[in-house]
Every structure is written in C-alpha cells, then in structure tokens.
C-alpha cells in the first residue's frame, strides 16, 4: 500500500492571482486573467490575447538574496521560485534552514527554458561578444534552472528533479513527488511547475492554428472550453506549487492538511490508435484515469468533481467522451466538470499544477468554480453528460473527491485523485 501522502502547502502565480487568497477570490467569482496584448497585434499573430501574471521583479525581493535576484532574468524561473516558496511558508516552514534537509526533495516541471535569456546569449555570441555573457546565463538556460534555485534556497537534500511532459508536466511532477513519499524515498516534496510563454513559443502555437483568434476584441471571452463557438486555446503563463508530506511526518509537526493525494497515474497511448504527437489516444487516456482511480483505491462513483484538461479546442468533445467511458458514468450521474482555463488560459507545463492548486482549494472550501464563456456548450457534450454538470456560476457543494487530469503533446497522460483527509 505504501505511505499516505497529504497536501500541506499551496503557492500560486496565476494571471488572475499572485497569492492564494487572491486566487481563491478570483476562482470563486469567475474573474478572468485574459488580456489583449498590443505586442501580439504588432507581431501579426492571429491570437492577440493571453493570460500573463501581473508579476514584477520587485515581488521576489524577500524571496531570494539580493545578489541572486541581481542578474536573474528568466521569468519562468521567477514564477517557480515565488510559487514554491509561498507553498513552503504556507505549510508553516521557515525559508532558510541552517542545515540540508535530507528528507525533503523537489520535482518541478517546465517546458522551455526562458527564451529571453537564450536570445541574449544568441545575440551576444553571434556578435562575437561571448566574453560579456557573464556567470548567470547557464543556470537560467538549463532546464533544471528552476529546481536549482528552489532547492538551493530551501536547502533541500533529497531527490531534485526537473521534468517535462508538455501539458501533462504539472500533474506528472506532483505524481512523481507523491510516489517518492508513498514508497518511502522521501518524507516531504516540493512539487509543481512553471511556464513563461514568450513571443517565440506563442508564435509556434499561433502558426499551428490552434489558438483562439475570434475574440481579440473581447479578451475575457476568448478562452471558451467546451463551448461550440470555441476556436482554440489562449496561452497563459504562471506557476503552481504544492508541499506534499508523508502523513505521519505532517502529523508529527502539527501541520495543517488541505487534503490527501490518494493516487494517480501517468502513461502514454504510444501515439497509436488515435494518439499522435499532438492528440491523446482515447485508450491511453481511459486507462490512465482508471489506473489513477485504482491506485487511490476508490470507486469512480466517489468522484464529485472532474477538473478537466479541456483547453477549448476540438479535443474537448473527445476528452468528455473519454471521461464518460473511464468513470462509467453519464448524464446526470456524471460528476460536475470544470476547466480553469476558461479564466486563466492554458499555461502549458504550468497548467497541471495551477489547476491542481485550484482543485485543492475547491475541495478545501467546498465549491465548484464556474466555467466562464460556456453559454453555448458543444451539443455532443450536452448529449452525454447533460447541462446540469457544466456550472457557469459558482456552485456550493461538499467536495470529497476530485479527479484532475492533463494530456500533453507526445500523447502523455497524467491523472491525480485528491480527497479530503480523513483520520481513519
């Protein structure tokens, strides 16, 4: 069976909130963080809106040393540091410890290292000025930059791992941390993921014609998961972080407990039978959800809320079909389902951890956040799960168990089952 794993701290950097109280307020009230970006109009992007946190470098001043902050240019790393350290203090810990914490590790995910930093390196080197790059470039263009900053600041001495699985990264990072604790390899893990979508990454997606382009004049209506008038996703940026602990370790230090991470699974459809580089194969998705439920040792009937991947592309319809098959529930018997992306867009690697933070808050505070812009649900979705399970305003309801899943390029799937903590 393994050790029980509980969630004791949360941290967030989101387009609609830079700390947990503001983020909670935003998701309870359906506040969108999607804005028009004049630069994208200038760059002739089809999609000219995005979800960008209102982050300023000054906000990191009390998080890392002045010498470390001086020369830090990578925004994804910055978001990750802020979310992770906020989660750490939320869990009741001090930021600086005298000694290495051998029982605590970190799994933090990201997609691309910050291309603003890479661009600076390319420009200097091509101008034969590599001598002027200085000592701070390598640590910020390496994929493990974010884990190096977080673990160094907190003095973490257990497994320090950066992982990357496209849009499945966030939930996968959390799952990896969970497994290390479950199987006794660590007592506590700082887990999460970050993403800074700059113009170059944005341009790549824009060229694939998978981004929302019809709502540039109405940014808050642009991210429309499960809507018949959706025409693609809205890229977002940010970071989410959680502190996972061995239950006994958490109880021994009198930690507050948000919930229990009961189980999860990550797999791939192997890019066969409907799966491809860019599309999740149904068989893999269904297996992943079923395996997560089995790992959590619960019944599919116990799930009160599905926090979907649901990006606002043509894949939404297929995703709901997969959930129906995996849970063996449909119509009014299907759980409530929502997509945080309707408020903050799709922050790629960061999506899974930001959405898991939202899921834990809904579990803790007993509500279901609204789906924005769902005035016209896709008819095929209505046919199989009905309108009652697609809330467009906040629903107050006791949530005992939530299923959170994400599906990424490369046909990689990841699913978590989170429940209220019961002392039994």
């Amino acid at each position, binding site marked *: 069976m393994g050790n029980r794993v509980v969630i004791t701290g949360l941290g967030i950097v989101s387009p609609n909130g830079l700390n947990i109280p503001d983020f909670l307020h935003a998701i309870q009230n359906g506040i969108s963080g999607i804005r028009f970006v004049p630069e994208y109009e200038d760059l002739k992007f089809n999609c000219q809106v995005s979800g960008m946190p209102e982050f300023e470098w000054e906000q990191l001043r009390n998080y890392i*040393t*002045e*010498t470390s902050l*001086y*020369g830090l240019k990578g925004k994804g790393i910055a978001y990750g540091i802020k979310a992770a350290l906020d989660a750490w203090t939320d869990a009741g810990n001090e930021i600086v410890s005298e000694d290495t914490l051998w029982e605590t590790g970190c799994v933090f995910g990201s997609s691309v290292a910050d291309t603003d930093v890479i661009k600076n390196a390319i420009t200097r080197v091509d101008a034969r000025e590599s*001598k002027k790059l*200085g*000592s701070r470039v390598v640590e910020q263009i390496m994929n493990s930059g974010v884990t190096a900053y977080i673990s160094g600041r907190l003095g973490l001495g257990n497994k320090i791992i950066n992982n990357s699985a496209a849009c499945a990264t966030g939930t996968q990072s959390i799952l990896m941390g969970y497994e290390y604790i479950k199987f006794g390899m660590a007592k506590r893990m700082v887990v999460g993921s970050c993403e800074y979508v700059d113009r170059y990454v944005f341009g790549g997606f824009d060229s694939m014609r998978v981004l929302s382009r019809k709502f540039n004049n109405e940014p808050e209506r642009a991210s429309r998961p499960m809507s018949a008038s959706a025409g693609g996703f809205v890229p977002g940026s940010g970071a989410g972080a959680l502190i996972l602990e061995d239950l006994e370790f958490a109880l021994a230090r009198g930690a507050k407990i948000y919930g229990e991470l009961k189980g999860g699974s990550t797999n791939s459809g192997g890019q066969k039978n409907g799966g491809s580089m860019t599309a999740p194969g149904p068989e893999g998705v269904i297996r992943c959800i079923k395996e997560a439920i089995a790992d959590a040792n619960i019944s599919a009937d116990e799930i009160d809320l599905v926090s979907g991947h649901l990006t606002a592309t043509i894949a939404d319809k297929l995703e709901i079909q997969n959930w129906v098959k995996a849970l063996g529930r449909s119509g009014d018997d299907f759980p409530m389902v929502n997509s945080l992306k309707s408020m903050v867009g799709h922050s790629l690697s960061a999506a899974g951890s930001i959405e898991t933070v939202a899921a834990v808050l809904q579990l803790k505070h007993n509500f279901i956040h609204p789906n924005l812009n769902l005035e016209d649900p896709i008819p095929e979705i209505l046919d199989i799960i009905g309108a009652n399970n697609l809330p467009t305003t906040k629903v107050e309801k006791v949530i005992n168990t939530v299923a959170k899943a994400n599906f990424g390029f490369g046909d990689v799937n990841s699913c978590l089952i989170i429940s209220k903590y019961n002392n039994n």
Partner: protein
Amino acid sequence: MDRKEILSELKKVLAPYTESKEMLAGINEETDLIKDLKINSANLVDIIIDAEAQYNIEIDFDAAEKMYNVGNCIDVISEKINKTA
C-alpha cells in the same frame, strides 16, 4: 585616477555581488573578495565584465586571475587605465 578614486568606484562595481554591505562600506586594499565580502567565486567574471565597462578597459585572463583582493583589483585596473591613456 588615483588608487583612492579607483577604490571608491570599485565599491559600486562590487555592490551587486555581496550581501555584506557593512563590510563593503569599510573595504581597504587588504579586503579579500571571496573570504571577506563572501562573493561567490563564479561571480568574479561578472565583476571583471562590469569593471571593463566601468573603466573602458580590457582585462585579459592573466590579469583577471590576479584580482582576488581589493588591492590586486586596483593594481590591474590602474595599470590598464594608464596603458589606455
């Protein structure tokens, strides 16, 4: 530029790289960059890059290796400045 003036300018160059602000205020020619000012050794290259820009000089590898305390830094900088002048 005499040694006193260079030392005063050098304080500004070193400032972003040390947490020991009090120690920095009272530096003299004997102050060791790593031992006294607790500067991360990797940042010595940043200090050299900043000093090159500050004094409009070029500091080669051999000269850079000598720059471990304030006095050595002033030696190298004043030598290069005088060459340029």
